[in-house]
């Protein structure tokens, strides 16, 4: 094992460690689950953990690698979730469930990707915080529109409305309600499993890490580091911004599909797809060390587990969570504490993943 690692160059070694970490975690949890040690509470968290990890990896491509702040990523997840659940609902039992789920995931990614591309065109005419607020705006618009979307199907085909179920003009007796406004899509089969979640996470990592360490990835990072210099050596800035944003949206769409097929009823609530959720993904990326896919996954898992582990002290848990978040940020990022760590060589233990990740991602 060590031998294989030492033969690789540093970037492939780093990627290898990231894949290994995910596969290792999967193996350990599967064994625990087989032995019946894992509590059902944690068992129920496995798919969401995969979803959040995928979202963290996806957003890291935009924030850490492209260097643009996006606070609307939950919107792409929302699109992926609704597109995939809609497909599943339409097909019904007309297809083997596994094949249907795979196609649903692809459709989730495709729809999110198309919107990512279309939204990216206006968004990237802006800079910095203005760009961030527009991504937030798009995320909220997506959530809002999904919340007021009614789609039904009867003998005459599909019917749509943005105001109410009655406005669709659907045959109310024989028609089937597919998307019911604020109630969303109900009765989606729960096809998502931990194994599928891990596989999509690995696929997302494969796409993003390979992209980062390629001609395209270098172009994306050059835009982040200095867009004027990038242009001066012939990099098409808009193209690579759009590429990163679209790939990121596709992967967020996958995560959405996974998420939707883990719930029997899917509604575009603020708690699930609002800006708060987008911000949570951003927290994963920043705490994971901006630019590091591995760090983002670790942060996603740790930050999702903390509130769960704090459940025994239910009423204080979210308060404690917020304090932990603030303290972690200050310890991690303030110049004073960084100097302190440097001096006492503490960073070796605390920031190991972050330091190595810096190489891997950047």
């Amino acid at each position, binding site marked *: 094992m060590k031998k294989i690692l030492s033969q690789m*160059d*540093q970037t492939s070694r780093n990627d290898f460690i990231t894949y290994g970490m995910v596969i290792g975690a999967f193996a350990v949890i599967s064994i625990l689950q087989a032995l019946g040690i894992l509590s059902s509470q944690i068992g129920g968290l496995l798919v969401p953990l995969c979803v959040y990890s995928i979202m963290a990896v996806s957003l890291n491509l935009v924030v850490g690698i492209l260097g643009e702040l996006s606070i609307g990523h939950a919107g792409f997840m929302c699109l992926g979730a609704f597109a995939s659940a809609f497909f599943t609902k339409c097909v019904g039992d007309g297809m083997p469930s596994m094949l249907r789920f795979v196609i649903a995931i692809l459709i989730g990614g495709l729809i999110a990707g198309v919107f990512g591309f279309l939204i990216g065109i206006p968004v990237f005419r802006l800079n910095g915080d203005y760009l961030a607020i527009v991504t937030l705006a798009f995320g909220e618009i997506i959530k809002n529109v999904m919340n007021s979307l009614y789609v039904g199907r009867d003998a005459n085909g599909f019917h749509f409305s943005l105001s109410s179920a009655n406005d669709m003009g659907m045959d109310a007796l024989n028609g089937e309600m597919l998307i019911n406004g604020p109630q969303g899509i109900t009765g989606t089969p729960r096809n998502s499993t931990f194994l599928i979640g891990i596989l999509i996470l690995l696929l997302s990592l*494969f*796409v993003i890490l*390979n*992209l980062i360490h*390629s*001609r*395209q*990835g*270098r*172009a994306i*990072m*050059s835009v*982040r*580091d*200095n867009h*004027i*210099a*990038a*242009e*001066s*050596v*012939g*990099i*098409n800035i808009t193209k690579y911004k759009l*590429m990163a944003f679209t790939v990121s949206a596709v992967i967020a769409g996958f995560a959405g599909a996974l998420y939707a097929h883990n719930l029997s009823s899917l509604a575009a609530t603020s708690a699930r797809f609002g800006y708060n959720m987008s911000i949570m993904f951003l927290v994963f990326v920043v705490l994971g060390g901006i*630019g590091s896919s591995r760090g983002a996954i670790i942060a996603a898992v740790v930050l999702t587990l903390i509130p769960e582990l704090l459940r025994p002290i239910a009423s204080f848990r979210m308060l404690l969570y917020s304090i932990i978040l603030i303290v972690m940020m200050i310890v991690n990022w303030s110049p004073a504490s960084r100097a302190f760590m440097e001096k006492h060589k503490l960073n070796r233990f605390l920031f190991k993943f972050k330091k190595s990740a810096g*190489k891997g991602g*950047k």
Partner: protein
Amino acid sequence: MALLEINNLSISFGGLRAVDEFNLSIEQGDLYGLIGPNGAGKTTVFNLLTGVYKPNEGIIRLDGRDITGKKPIEINKAGIARTFQNIRLFKQMSVLDNVKVGLHNIYRCPPAASILRLPAYYETEKKMNERAYELLSVFGLDKEADSTLASNLPYGRQRKLEIARAMATNPRLLLLDEPAAGMNPNETQELMDTIHYIRDSFGMTILLIEHDMKLVSGICEKLTVLNFGRILTQGETKKVLANPEVIKAYLGE
């Protein structure tokens, strides 16, 4: 025919003629200097040449082709590459990757091949690495190029890395904006040798802005002197530097 031909180039910023009726003709293989006091408009000329600014008047021709007002990417593709007065490296990327970004349009590989790691990916990476190390070795930057971040290089070497990155785009004309700024005399001497070397062995045409008179008189064969956005004089280096007007512009009256 001259490689670079500039006619009557002018640009104004809010009523101020930053560059006024600028003319320049550079032959293939020239090592040309653009000098003048601070604020004379030298960097503005570079920005006009590389498409950062669009001129109000005038024509820029590269090898007979009109490139006036084109975008920076197009101008780079047409064959002009530059460095910046205030160094603009890709700071969080390795020294090697900085040069590989410069090779972006030289060796291609579609995104799908990159993501799926098809043979085309490995081929491109191999070619890029070979070429990048070749360029880096000219500047003595090839050691640990893969593991050193550009921002961790000392100042003088950052300037060299910028030149290497610009050269990676295979330009016909290389624009160097104060390449020796911040270098000590030894480094400057070394840089002069390197500039000579790249002109001779890569057949590069070079236009540079510089304040260091030792460097200018040491390597530039021809000079143009700018003062208040206008050409004061141009011609062979010796004659230009002996011109009393030039001395007056530099030292004041």
